[in-house]
């Protein structure tokens, strides 16, 4: 197994660092899947993380100037590692002004991802800083856990309001309750609700717009636009996702580079009516030019 990659461009380096900062905020440990074309950060939904799962996909050519991979075998030409994203983001953090950053798979006292940055210096010879980040190699027999998730059969899909607004609403609601109900309809309306014995609070968002999902056109047509589909989730998981999003200060929320969908899946795909008894999952998708991030928050009863 071999892996060597190099970033020479400061913009790519900053972008890659931002992605890692986002991943770090979402999870303490994740799987790094390296293939010839892509780099994936994967978290598979387990009880330990409250059923939350994450899939972040990067097109490697958009970040790395050099990229060489020799996977486990020729038919399985990829490498799966378990790593703590914080170690990576911390190593990158202080290398933002590096002339180049190399990442390679090495074997020190244990398998490591070694990050080497060439930094500017006062002399003609640059300073080199290396970080050996311990990783665990994931054997092939476990790879099935880390496959790309299928798009859930959702009932409603809607564009989210500006993240900053949503985050401030969710932050305040978190003080009142551990669970939040997200509901939305095909009329571009979304509500965030909390309900406790003492108080219930609802925040209404209007005119958000619904993405046109070609595949589900039939379903959309048959569904009453006003009917809300909803899912009740652990508010901290949603908050964690919102906290992790770092908006590029150069791009505004209205810019077409950033889209977010929220899909609320109800009990059954074949339900024609908004039978809001069995709620399943919220699927958040963040799409940027080079990166897509999917985050699944299961609904709780």
């Amino acid at each position, binding site marked *: 197994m071999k892996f060597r990659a190099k970033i020479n461009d400061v913009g790519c380096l900053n972008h890659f660092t931002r992605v890692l900062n986002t991943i770090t905020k979402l999870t303490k440990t994740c799987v790094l899947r390296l293939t010839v074309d892509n780099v994936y950060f994967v978290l598979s939904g387990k009880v330990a993380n409250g059923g939350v799962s994450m899939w972040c996909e990067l097109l490697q050519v958009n970040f790395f100037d050099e990229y060489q991979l020799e996977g486990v075998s020729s038919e399985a030409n990829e490498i799966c590692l378990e790593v703590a994203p914080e170690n990576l983001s911390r190593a990158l953090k202080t290398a933002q002004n590096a002339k180049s950053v190399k990442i390679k798979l090495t074997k020190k*006292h244990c398998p490591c991802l070694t990050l080497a940055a060439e930094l500017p210096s006062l002399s003609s010879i640059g300073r080199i*800083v290396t970080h050996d980040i311990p990783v665990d190699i994931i054997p092939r027999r476990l790879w099935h856990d880390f496959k790309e998730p299928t798009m859930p059969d959702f009932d409603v899909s809607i564009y989210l309001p500006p993240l900053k607004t949503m985050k401030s609403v969710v932050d305040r609601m978190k003080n009142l309750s551990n669970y939040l109900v997200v509901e939305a309809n095909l009329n571009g309306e979304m509500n965030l609700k909390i309900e406790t014995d003492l108080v219930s609070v609802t925040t209404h968002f209007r005119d958000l717009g619904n993405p046109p999902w070609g595949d589900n056109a039939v379903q959309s047509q048959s569904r009453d636009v006003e009917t809300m589909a909803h899912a009740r989730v652990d508010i901290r998981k949603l908050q964690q996702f919102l906290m992790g999003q770092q908006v590029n200060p150069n791009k505004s929320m209205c810019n077409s580079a950033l889209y977010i969908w929220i899909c609320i899946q109800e009990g059954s795909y074949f339900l024609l009516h908004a039978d809001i008894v069995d709620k399943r999952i919220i699927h958040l998708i963040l799409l940027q030019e080079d990166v897509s991030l999917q985050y699944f928050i299961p609904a709780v009863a």
Partner: protein
Amino acid sequence: MKSLFGRAVHALSRIGDEIWLEPLQKGSVLPLFRSVATIERSVYRCEISINVLNNRVMFQFNCKHGITKTHNLRYQECEALQAVFPTHLCPNILKSQPKLLSDVVMHFPTSQEEITLSISPIKVKFKSYFEEENDHIRSVCTEMSVHPDEFDYFQVGVDSEATFCLKELRGLLSFAETHGLPVSVHFGAPGRPVSFSVEDMVLEAVVVLSTLVIAASENPSQVSIVQEAPVPRNISDVCPASTPIADNSVANISKHEGPLEAEVACVPSENSTFPLGEQVASSQGSPVFFPASFHMKNLLQLHREEMDLLRPKGMHSLLFGAVSSSMADGIASELPSLVCASDTEDDAGDDGVRVEE
């Protein structure tokens, strides 16, 4: 000067919990200087004095709007010990702007306890050091190399390395950076202490750290602690770190592993510009300098309270000296030497160092 003092207190506080203030004062001073920014904004003048009758040292801040804040802290007298560290005998000397060292140190996580500084004619290397095998396995290991050209002064007498505690260095570096003072590093063979120092017209600060002897090295460190009061005072003194001393007499401490204490004679650099005081030969034979006026001088010394005695290695002995330049008279008083028997809380006797409030 007040912000300098406040910052000095801050820097020292990152090293230990107590401040040793001359003369013979001790107490918990940091809270008074907690917010350096606030002090700079609102305090015009800070006066420090002792009331021997009440056993109180008074810090009085004259602030804006006619407000005067007075803090009275109890103090405890203690015996002083001195150590001698002949920096002029160190084979390896580095001097650089504080930013260089700060830029190096920032790559190490704040949780990193110890680092190893290695020197050779072609490079200077800083690397994470892990005492326990367990820590090593799961932690990120960081290494940074700097070319000798980057240093303002670079002298390598013997290829060597020094493994010491990073926290103390960070404290001194942030102080040095704030005041733009170049930092000098003196060290020798593994196991011998390493000293980091800064100086300018009004102050000199020296942090002497004991270093680890890495198992491979055959060089056990042998040290003696010199002193008993009264003794000619040094500007910088060192506190023995990890070994309790039975009495105040000269004690020979040798250990098979790890660093400890050093025989340290504080010697200002050859081109010291202190015009005050006189040169006095120390018992070690190296010239010793001590400031003329006892009263005008502030000497700060910090101990770490929770010195782990069970840990024979690992650093931790350092101190910080600040000297005021406004010395009135040239009379050299006999100053009691500095404290420093042991840092352990278990130490009985008057050579203990305690925080009293």
